[in-house]
């Protein structure tokens, strides 16, 4: 059973507009949520994170919103740029007995057209 869900496999937006990527989770014990960005033939790179005790975190053009009651988070990119075209993974941090690991969603492919 998937604990982190990205229900939209793809999203297309025009340059300059807002991109909104969504993520739902089922485990209320997750304490951090992260977004990663991945270009083809490269490893994922960390983008932004949010603690479960916050509802918003902003870093430049990127803002992550967390709605704990709905178990939902979203990544907003404003304004979108063609270089933002990539696969975006939502991830949740979970504590194991020996440490912490990340559980990833299936990813959303964002295409930004100029």
């Amino acid at each position, binding site marked *: 059973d998937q604990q982190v869900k990205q229900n939209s496999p793809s999203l297309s937006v025009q340059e300059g507009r807002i991109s909104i990527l969504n993520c739902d989770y089922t485990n209320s014990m997750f304490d951090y949520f992260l977004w*990663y960005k991945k270009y083809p033939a*490269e*490893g994922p790179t960390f983008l932004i994170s949010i603690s479960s005790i916050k509802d918003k975190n902003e870093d430049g053009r990127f803002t992550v919103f967390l709605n704990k009651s709905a178990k939902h988070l979203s990544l907003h990119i404003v304004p979108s740029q063609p270089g933002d075209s990539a696969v975006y993974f939502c*991830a949740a941090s*979970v504590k194991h007995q020996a440490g912490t*690991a*990340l*559980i990833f*969603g*299936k990813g959303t492919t964002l295409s930004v057209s100029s």
Partner: protein
Amino acid sequence: DVKVTQSSRYLVKRTGEKVFLECVQDMDHENMFWYRQDPGLGLRLIYFSYDVKMKEKGDIPEGYSVSREKKERFSLILESASTNQTSMYLCASAQKGVRTGELFFGEGSRLTVL
């Protein structure tokens, strides 16, 4: 900058061959991980390690084993490769005690099993 280096970017192997995927990180991180990425399935955790000679199973450990003889090196082993192990393999490392669980990824190793 954290550097996670995976020894082979592209490999082609035959069914039944033993395959070694090597990963080295240069930031003295305690935690290391192996994920695989498949279209429509996202990133799935195979194995992780929180210390030398330690290993923990992830979500899909079947058909794989790992070795961590030195802190900086984490190897993924396919004892007898099968076609369903054709995938992109991603190694990652993280500093112990970081609550967010932020991972630093290598560039990936694309394995094709014929």
